[in-house]
């Protein structure tokens, strides 16, 4: 009979501060706690009293990796509230901006944060000693994404060109043309990346997850779509709060989000892929198959392959958008405030990001609610660890702890977003 305590006091290679405590008593996992001790950040509170036009720039500050996602959910919520529909070219530019963010965020997570777990390195610097060309490729790929964000957003981190209704300045097609060369290189690099991560060894692990993501009529989802799941959920974003609830848990500064009917659920690349495989480009589908994935993948460790496939998709989508882009007459659609409540959800690199705002007649924000991807995945991460550790009690502590951290990183958790996470403690008694 084993009693153990797995303690990772400070989880590395995740954004923000958190820890993981796992307690095992008489060969039974008695407690799994993902502790998020990144201090609460009160964004929802200090949005109150600000003008509706300020929400995209304020909320973008929640995350340095996915600021575009915050800007996108904010502008879509405001536009839903104020009855604004943006013209085609602005819509296309928003997708292009999102492509840039997915490429830089996925590039960072695949190469710098997650791949070292699979290859047995402490970090990417150590990995670079044996795989210099791959790490160089990863850094360059990430940079292609950052450049896209810079060209459209005015700067690499916390872009400043997004506003409710569109952009402050729309680029000329000739501003975008120079990106084509680097994106063509990135397409090859993304194909190589899918092959590289497809060759990793994955722990055997599958769960009966409820995947939740946006689904759109024609496109792989960025900004629009219905909220759907593989267990029958199919709702308009406006009905989100009828089906999902956020709860406080004592061990975490992040709220824990659950489906009212069925409990924990799964958002992010794996959920998007499983619900939207048919919306990927032919090349992305082909590469996924070559890497050993079917249209549905239930092993969260293989999310690293899915991130590579999504990177490839984002590169191809960016190329397609640039090819057909025409500058809009006006960089933004006109907006005028009114007293109303509205919401929107978009697909951040880490999954569904929901915003709701209540405005007064002058457009002052009276109430704001933000549900980031990591707090939605928190329950599923804990459930995964409970199952995973239970199946591997015979492993030595060091290896088990390593695999637990690897498991947490399957979700690319962004703790700064969610407190708005990582130490692992494994305790066997």
């Amino acid at each position: 009979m084993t009693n153990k305590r797995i303690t990772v006091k400070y989880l590395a290679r995740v954004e923000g501060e958190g820890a993981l405590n796992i307690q095992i008593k008489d060969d039974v996992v008695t407690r799994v706690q993902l502790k998020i001790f990144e201090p609460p950040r009160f964004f929802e509170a200090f949005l109150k009293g600000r003008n509706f036009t300020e929400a995209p720039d304020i909320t973008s500050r929640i995350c340095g990796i996915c600021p575009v996602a915050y800007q996108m959910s904010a502008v879509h919520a405001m536009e839903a509230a104020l009855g604004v529909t943006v013209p085609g070219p602005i819509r296309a530019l928003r997708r292009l901006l999102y492509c840039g963010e997915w490429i830089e965020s996925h590039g960072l997570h695949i190469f710098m944060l997650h791949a070292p777990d699979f290859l047995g390195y402490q970090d990417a610097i150590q990995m670079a000693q044996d795989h210099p060309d791959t790490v160089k490729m990863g850094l360059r790929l990430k940079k292609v994404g950052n450049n896209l964000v810079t060209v459209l957003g005015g700067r690499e981190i916390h872009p400043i060109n997004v506003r409710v209704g569109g952009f402050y300045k729309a680029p000329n097609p000739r501003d975008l043309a120079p990106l084509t060369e680097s994106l063509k290189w990135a397409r090859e690099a993304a194909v190589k990346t899918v092959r590289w991560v497809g060759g990793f060894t994955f722990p055997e692990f599958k769960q009966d997850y409820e995947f939740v993501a946006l689904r759109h009529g024609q496109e792989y989802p960025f900004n629009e779509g219905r909220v759907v799941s593989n267990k029958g959920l199919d709702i308009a974003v406006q009905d989100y709060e009828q089906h999902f609830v956020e709860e406080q848990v004592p061990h975490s500064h992040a709220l824990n989000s659950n489906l009212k009917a069925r409990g924990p659920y799964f958002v992010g690349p794996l959920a998007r892929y499983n619900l939207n495989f048919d919306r990927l480009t032919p090349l992305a589908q082909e590469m996924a198959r070559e890497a050993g994935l079917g249209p549905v993948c239930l092993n969260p460790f293989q999310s690293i392959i899915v991130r590579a496939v999504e990177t490839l998709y984002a590169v191809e989508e960016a190329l397609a958008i640039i090819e057909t882009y025409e500058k809009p007459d006006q960089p933004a659609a006109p907006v005028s405030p009114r007293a109303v409540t509205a919401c929107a959800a978009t697909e951040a690199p880490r999954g569904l990001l929901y915003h709701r705002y209540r405005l007064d007649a002058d457009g002052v924000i009276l109430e704001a609610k933000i549900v980031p991807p990591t707090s939605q995945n928190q329950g599923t991460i804990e459930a995964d660890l409970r199952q995973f550790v239970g199946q591997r009690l015979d492993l030595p502590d060091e290896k088990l702890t390593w695999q637990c951290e690897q498991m947490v990183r399957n979700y690319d958790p962004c703790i700064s977003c969610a407190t708005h996470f990582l130490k692992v403690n494994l305790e066997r008694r």
Partner: protein
Amino acid sequence: MHTPVKPRLKVIGVGNEWRGDDAAGLLVVRRLQAAALTGVEIFESLGTTGEVQDAWKDAAGVIVVDAVAASGPPGAIYRFDAHGAGMPVKLSRSPSSHGWGVAEALALGRLFQELPPWLIIYGIEGENFDPGREVSPAVAAAIPELVRRIQREIQEWLGREVFVR
């Protein structure tokens, strides 16, 4: 036609001006900027790996100025030659665990043999890196001395370069 010659010496100030003493690197290079030194390009950076790598690419000589947390007295000044002995074995990684910083740029530059031929890192010990804080008095007081040392270093480097040519 002449292609403009890139400044061969660059001083890169790294920091976040909204995080207390982390602003020190920026404040130092702003003073150097004001001194309008010829043949020297001043660059301000948030210190992400990619940005630092881009900034020092193609330069013959580079000085990086950044706040450090080395458990010394606030305002203490450190100097490391990236190609010499005496570099700390483990440079502290960037405060944001999701972002890569100067330490990673140095480690990768060494590994890939892409460091500028002459690279000096100046550190200034900070005590408070909290959001929205002012630079603490001990750090502010040490900034003029650090500026003087860097100016002297620049003059020596430029002198050597001229002599070599």
